[in-house]
């Protein structure tokens, strides 16, 4: 789950990271009011869950409350990389002397969190990472011990931070570590962390990704999810515990198991078709879940055929067949369906579907070819 900049910075502030004064607004008049309260120059920042906001014109510095209102009007009418802007953050503007990058992410290969820092922070950090990776300092953190003070000092020295800022930097690095740990983040990033005209460190921007698997123990964070920023079908799928991702093709897929779901998409493509979605109904899915999955697949008007590929293990093929029949009653689909049932109770499942006017297949390759042919004929 991605958090917005304003949400991330509020969390950082809770753990002692200094952030600019500011608030989030949904209308231009609200933006003006916040700018009046802050006084002086402010930054109007679009809150959308994609990178490159500045380059897209979604971040502007306003010299007066009137100008803040005008920029907010413009930005709230924008779409950035396909996502409509619904909120703007109004922050007091900072006079910047230097931009630093500071972040923590999970290093899969090392099986440890890694703190990364660079003296060359700001909008081009990805280019720095690609062209001059030696300018990014990486320090692994022992997940059982946490970030040690000496590690933060080493990082400060390695990025040539002025000595008078080392103590402050230690507080910020530690705060970022605590925020990362407390929120089960997979990424917690400050970019840029600036040295301002008063020689103080301030986190001007923040980004956090939260581990979806940990949301059961983070109820406050789970409520921060911005469902405006995902496809409605993906929100609906999550409600039923289905793993669903919408794609651009015309063959809907319902599969049990993530690896097999990806593979079914691949095999459709191999035989000249295009998958309309990734959908894993999970292990042990009952009829209700299967019916919900079918409704979601068929709500996509691009779908010209549906492939069901079920390898029964914990999941019982007869349960899946019952779900398919129940959903067909309700949705009355008018696209061809190809079904392949193998494994636990496959015979019973096939018998249930015998009168359902579905195309059957024995192997995955056979099923994919039949689905591709059906989609082209429709």
């Amino acid at each position, binding site marked *: 789950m991605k958090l917005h900049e304003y949400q991330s910075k509020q969390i950082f502030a809770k753990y002692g990271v200094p952030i600019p004064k500011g608030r989030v607004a949904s209308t231009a008049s609200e933006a003006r009011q916040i700018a009046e309260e802050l006084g002086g120059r402010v930054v109007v920042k679009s809150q959308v869950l994609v990178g490159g906001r500045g380059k897209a014109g979604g971040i502007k510095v306003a010299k007066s409350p009137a100008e803040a209102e005008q920029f907010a009007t413009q930005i709230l009418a924008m779409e950035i990389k396909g996502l409509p802007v619904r909120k703007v953050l109004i922050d007091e503007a900072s006079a910047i002397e230097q931009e630093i990058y500071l972040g923590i992410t999970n290093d899969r290969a090392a099986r440890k969190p890694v703190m990364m820092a660079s003296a060359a922070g700001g909008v081009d950090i990805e280019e720095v990472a690609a062209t001059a990776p030696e300018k990014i300092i990486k320090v692994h953190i022992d997940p*059982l011990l946490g970030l040690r003070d000496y590690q933060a000092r080493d990082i400060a020295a390695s990025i040539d931070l002025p000595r008078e800022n080392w103590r402050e930097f230690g507080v910020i690095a530690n705060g970022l570590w605590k925020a990362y740990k407390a929120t089960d983040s997979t990424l917690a990033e400050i970019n840029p962390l600036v040295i301002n005209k008063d020689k103080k460190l301030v986190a001007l921007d923040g980004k956090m990704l939260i581990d979806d698997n940990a949301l059961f123990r983070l109820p406050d964070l789970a409520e921060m999810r911005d469902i405006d920023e995902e496809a409605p079908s993906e929100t609906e799928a999550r409600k039923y515990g289905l793993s669903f991702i919408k794609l651009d093709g015309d063959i809907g897929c319902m599969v049990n198991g993530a690896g097999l779901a990806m593979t079914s998409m691949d095999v459709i493509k191999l035989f000249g078709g295009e998958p309309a979605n990734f959908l894993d109904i999970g292990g042990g899915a009952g009829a209700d879940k299967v019916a919900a999955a079918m409704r979601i697949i068929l709500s996509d008007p691009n779908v010209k055929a549906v492939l069901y590929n079920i390898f029964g293990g914990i999941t019982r093929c007869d349960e899946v067949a019952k779900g398919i029949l129940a959903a067909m009653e309700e949705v009355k689909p008018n696209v061809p369906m190809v079904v392949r049932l193998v494994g636990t109770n496959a015979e019973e499942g096939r018998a249930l579907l015998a009168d359902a006017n579905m195309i059957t297949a024995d192997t995955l390759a056979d099923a994919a070819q039949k689905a591709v042919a059906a989609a082209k004929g429709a």
Partner: protein
Amino acid sequence: MSVLINKNTRLLVQGITGNEGLFHTTQMVAYGTNVVAGVTPGKGGEWVLDGKVPVFDSVKIAVEATGANTSVIFVPARFAADAMFEAADAGIPLIVCITEGVPVQDMMRVRNYLDQKKVRLVGPNCPGLLTPGEAKVGIIPGNIAISGNVGVVSRSGTLTYEVLYAMKNLDMGASTCVGIGGDPVNGTNFIDVLEMFEHDAQTEKVIMIGEIGGTDEEKAAEFIAAKMTKPVASFIAGQTAPPGKRMGHAGAIIEGGAGTAADKIAALEAAGVRVAKHPEEIPTLLK
């Protein structure tokens, strides 16, 4: 011979009285696995499976009473990390965690702790292990595989079943099937299992089933080129997966342009591995 589990496995089931735990314990016992104990805190003293398997309050007590040498974990995700710590502290040398959805920061703590204790973990979010004809630890359906000389290692669940089933249809058997799981941080990786297969007398050929995300397949390719004498065939799932989207498994995601199926296939082919176009084709590459 086989790897990790065999007839001498003395299995303990953590979460044995839960729905999944009880169902799969029944299946494992029916397969012939020697299930010696179960653990559910607060239910010590009870028996399950018509008095065949005793239940204990803690792993430590269960190990002292029964000499269990392998543990399989079926507890819900929120309790899984604690279950792994408990098994490791009780001196169990091989832990297999089936549970899906364990937070990744939990797994980093678990993995770093278990490494210090030299405990082997398989999983989490995995189907477990199957040595056909000898023992099954986890949820792989026993009837889809026969005993043979092919070692199978996989990041996936049902995709692995698909491959075992295609092998059986060609009369090809497995020495051991190891499901290492689809999480970004897990216990056992491809290289660990490839090394075991290389040294296992029964295993003559290897099938490795990978998917998008991370760099474990690329590292396995380096290992295969440098150290493996036995032929390896492979399949990589997720060739049509879009970048930046988590494809069900927490670990199956293309991040920052890394972890694509194309990169993995290229690395494996360069190491002399034959990569199949679809899973049913894999066994034919080893015929």
